[in-house]
């Protein structure tokens, strides 16, 4: 009797072990990256953008497996609510109330499941927007749903 019970317990343990057998499926645990170190990359921390001009956002995006999409978002930071993700600090103008701040929300699917992508996007900055401190968010995902973001401080000038 006792022995039978022991076997039952052992069978149970075996079931456990088999059920929990390791399957080695490689899963992606690396985030994509945003590289703005290149000479041609724009904007960089503390960059200035002339209102009424057209600038080109440019960054090198990469992932170990396959990139998904990227998104950029430009917002005023007149109230200093937001902070950049960068090491360097930029000088901030005094706090002020927005009248007609520049707003840009744009997302782009990266085609072809690539590992490297040279993101380029033309941005028209209207001539009548408020000059001042802005926050330029760059975000990128990969196919697994990992994401990275960088918040760059920029200034729109007359």
């Amino acid at each position, binding site marked *: *009797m*006792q022995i*039978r*019970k022991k076997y*039952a*317990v052992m*069978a*149970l343990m075996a*079931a*456990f072990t*088999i*059920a*929990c057998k390791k399957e080695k*499926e490689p*899963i992606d*645990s690396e985030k994509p990256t945003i590289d703005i170190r290149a000479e041609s990359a724009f904007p960089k921390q503390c960059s200035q953008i002339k209102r009424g001009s057209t600038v080109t956002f440019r960054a090198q995006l990469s992932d170990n497996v396959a990139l*998904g*999409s*990227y*998104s*950029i*978002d430009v*917002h*005023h*930071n007149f*109230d*200093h*609510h*937001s*902070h*950049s*993700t*960068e*090491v360097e600090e930029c000088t901030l103008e005094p706090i002020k*109330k*927005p009248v007609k*701040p520049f*707003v840009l*929300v*744009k*997302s*782009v*699917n990266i085609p072809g499941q690539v590992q490297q992508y040279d993101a380029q996007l033309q941005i028209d900055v209207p001539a009548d927007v408020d000059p001042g401190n802005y926050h330029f968010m760059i*975000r990128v*995902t*990969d*196919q*697994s*749903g*990992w*994401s990275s*973001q*960088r*918040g760059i401080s920029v200034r729109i000038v007359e």
Partner: protein
Amino acid sequence: MNKRTIFTLLLTSILSVPNYAQEKVTKTVGLKEVLVEGKRYGQSAEGAMSVAILTNDSLQKYQAGSLMQTLDRVPGVNAIGIGASQSKPQIRGLGFNRVATVENGIKHEGQQWGLDHGLEIDQFGVGAVEIIKGASSFMYGSDAIAGVIRLSSPTAPQENGLQGHINLFTRSNNASYGAALQLQGRKNNWIFGGGVTHLDYADYRVPTDTVYVYNYAVRLKNRQVRNTAGRETSLQFRTGYVSERFSSILYLSNYHTKIGFFANAHGLEPRGVDTALYDRSDRDILYPSQQVNHFKLISRNNITQGVHKIWLDLGYQRNYRQEFNNYTAHGYMPPVYPQDMAIPMNLERLYDKEIYHITLKDEFNLASHRLTIGGNAEQQLNHIDGWSFLIPGYRQKAMGVFIHDRYTINEQTILYGALRYDHSTMHSFPYQDWFASRLENNQSVHVVRADELHRSFHSLIWSLGATRQIGQWETKLNVGKSFRAPLAQELAANGVNYHYFSYEKGNTSLSPEQSYQMDLSVARSIGSANFAFTPFFNYFSNYIYLNPTSGYDQYYGAGNQIFEYAQSKVQRYGAELQVEYRPLKDLKIELLGEYVRSKQLSGSKKGYTLPFSPAPSLVLDVSWSPRSSRYFKEPYLSLDSKWTANQQHIVPPEEKTKGYQVLNLRAGTQLPLGRSALQLRLQIQNILDTKYMNHTSFYRLISLPEQGRNIILSLGIPFGEQNRS
């Protein structure tokens, strides 16, 4: 091996238990303080489950910043900490709406789904805690899928009189000062009791001067986490009539807290901080902050009528949560907050939830069977407000009927069975943005964030268990199916959580989560050693999770990453180990280990774990409790070391977390004073001021280390006619 084979095996082994009979009755194996015990639960429906019990005394001894942080030491139990003073329960790696907290028979309902929403319970008002590890849906319905934290108020004295104690305490790390008064009394059959707790704390300290929010270095003044100060006030009152055949007790409580969030990063969002303003005081609470009030009224009644024992529990709760923040125009929100808005400018979110609950059950004997039949019904009404939208308002109605059977075969073997049917309806209310977004064709539209939705859900669940004494071994086995009905936001959310850069989309076609589980417990004592091992296995056929996709939504999601609610197959397994050994009468060595591994078996996150998976950990504790002397009664001194392994298994957007070792010291004694005795306790948590990160902590994602060294001193002053517990 597939799940069917495993379950067939398990069932066969349960069903064959009665065949091996007739060992002598042996002593119950119990581990003191954190114990797995058979006898006590032989009487109740959860007899075949693994239950850990902590008394009020242990809660005081291990006191941390909040209830769940105090309970974190129990193997298989973790706290999802939100700074130093708020936390949410997690059992065997599952938390949020997958753990039910039950106080005085009624399920505690707040906004459990929220990452930064702590459990609204005062740890000083708790008399005893029972932690049921493993699915308990058959007792409590939806939400108890991972386990139950069951709390009960301090019990009334056996004899007439009034007794109580005042507890004064201070914690060095966040300069907490607190006082708790608890009172219990009896006059013949009438009992009464009550409590008041108040505590006030400053910003907590971490062992670093600088934290990195992404690459930006945030300097911390005096190593304090800016704006995490808070206050907590709690009141409890209870009264009733208790006799052998009849009892009726009324519990009334109110919990209130106000606490700040780290000012330099809200969620994942780096925030600009006026350090001159924020560093002026470490006790003020600026934005962002939260304020929560939880009111509870419970009536528990039971009457014995012949062989029947009938229970009726009624409950009313109101959870009122406000989240404050400076208005920030994210996405398409207007740059300046409109003056004609009815919502206050600093009210980011508000949730006002009212919950009505009724449980009726009848326990009776029928031959060797102890049967319980009953049912419960609950209604939740959730209102929302504030300028930020995450989840819609809703009305949820749920009812369930159940039958439990405990069949005593002989003194060594008891079988358990349960069957339960649940029906619930969800009516979520429509919500439209108060501001216009720019859509595809350059239209300006007030986006509908949630459509009106009506859904209803059914679930039939079951549970089978056995406890058996096999020689020196006390074994318990439980298998069963449990469920969780989808939440309003899982079905109907369509909002942007700017603090997480996520656009969260519900899925109206979700079905109730189904889970199959197997829990085993083996325990025995060998001489002066006690041992308990509790492995478990769990399979979800459709686990509901928020899946981060590779897409951004420029229009409805204001450029944020799309997170969609989806369902996938999930497998979980793990075990807890507890060993207690007394080499000498005064010396105790304790070893507590826990391990859990989760894996998604299907869907777009196939191969990944579940979010907030706790890393394996091991606690080694050495306690010395010399005999009482004239001046020192029941003194104790203990040193414990907790090793936590790396957590390499992560899922977006998590980060891998390094392993760590933390040392804690505890000491205490009673100082006789006339006929009573003062209780003095000291704790030094994180003695070496180790800098580490906890994978299950809310602030892990922004790489904020855990609390540094913390010295906790408490003084208990008893009063009244009976001072002995």
